[in-house]
């Protein structure tokens, strides 16, 4: 897979002794629509803590319905475990006594939807398979997606894989929207891969609970 070289200028280093600069950075991360940002080594313990944050009411916005929280939680788990397993940026965690993937998770809200993005460095050779899988999933209707999930689940897992390769299908099913992905070239062998899932703020069951 070939991507055009990235011509963005390298960002200036962040002066962490400079409160003005750090405040600007803080403001970026605390933008009104951003609910949650995590960048770092995605351990299982971190995932559990992030999951807890989803259920907490945000003081400045309404509390999402339990069914929306469940969907976001499920998508967060699959995205975090994808980063944990497949990010090409690895870090050894002494607490976990193992190497885990490094990545970024961002939860954003708009008037109508929540959007959850999972992003990490990835080798170009893996990206092609991933994008064609996303495209295929996006081409399926809701009942076909359900059938496809059940078919894939019946297949034996790949030797050595710790996951079941079902994560993307599950994310698409729970989201109820097409998967969105975006690729940003980093160097000749790696790119920054971003997968974004959208969830309606009022889900089916939230509607039926109101009626």
């Amino acid at each position, binding site marked *: 897979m070939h991507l055009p070289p990235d011509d963005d200028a390298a960002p200036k280093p962040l002066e962490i002794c400079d409160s003005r600069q750090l405040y600007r950075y803080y403001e970026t991360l605390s933008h009104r629509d951003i609910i949650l940002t995590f960048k770092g080594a995605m351990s299982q313990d971190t995932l559990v803590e992030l999951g807890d944050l989803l259920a907490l009411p945000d003081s400045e916005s309404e509390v999402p319905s339990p069914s929306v929280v469940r969907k976001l939680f499920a998508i967060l788990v699959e995205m975090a475990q994808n980063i944990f397993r497949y990010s090409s940026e690895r870090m050894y965690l002494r607490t976990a006594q193992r190497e885990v993937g490094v990545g970024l998770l961002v939860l954003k809200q708009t008037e109508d939807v929540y959007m959850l993005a999972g992003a990490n460095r990835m080798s170009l050779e893996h990206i092609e398979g991933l994008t064609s899988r996303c495209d295929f999933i996006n081409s399926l209707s809701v009942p076909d997606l359900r059938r496809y999930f059940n078919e894939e*689940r*019946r297949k034996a897992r790949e030797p050595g894989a710790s996951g*079941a390769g079902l994560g993307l299908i599950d994310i698409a099913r*729970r989201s109820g929207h097409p998967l969105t992905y975006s690729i940003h070239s980093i160097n000749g062998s790696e790119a920054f891969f971003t997968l974004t899932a959208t969830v309606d703020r009022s889900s089916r069951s939230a509607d039926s*609970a109101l009626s």
Partner: protein
Amino acid sequence: MQTLDIAATRTTPGVIYDPAANRLSLTGQSYPENSFEFYGPIKDWLEELLEGQPASLLVEFRLDYFNTSSSKCLLDILERLEAHHQQFGNIAIRWYYDSEDEDMEESGQDFGEDLELPFELVPCES
């Protein structure tokens, strides 16, 4: 008689076998770092139980959430139970779900439709 009593954690369900009632139950959430590591020993335990020819076996799923790799492991366990049922006809599954959780209901339907063994969906009030 074999017993099994695995305490629930934040990311793994409690797994309990009550030999007096011939009942195995899985309760809680399931999204371990490695599902195959968690469910492997449970499958081995189940294998031993089935080899001992239990009179009957009721398996209750009371799960709030499970991730996709857990889902694969649950199917492995259910397929093993199905194989035993086809030979001895003495296994039943009960799938409990929060009545407002349509994803968990759908998961139960999908497992139930794919398997040839008694599979009861039981909605619960949240």
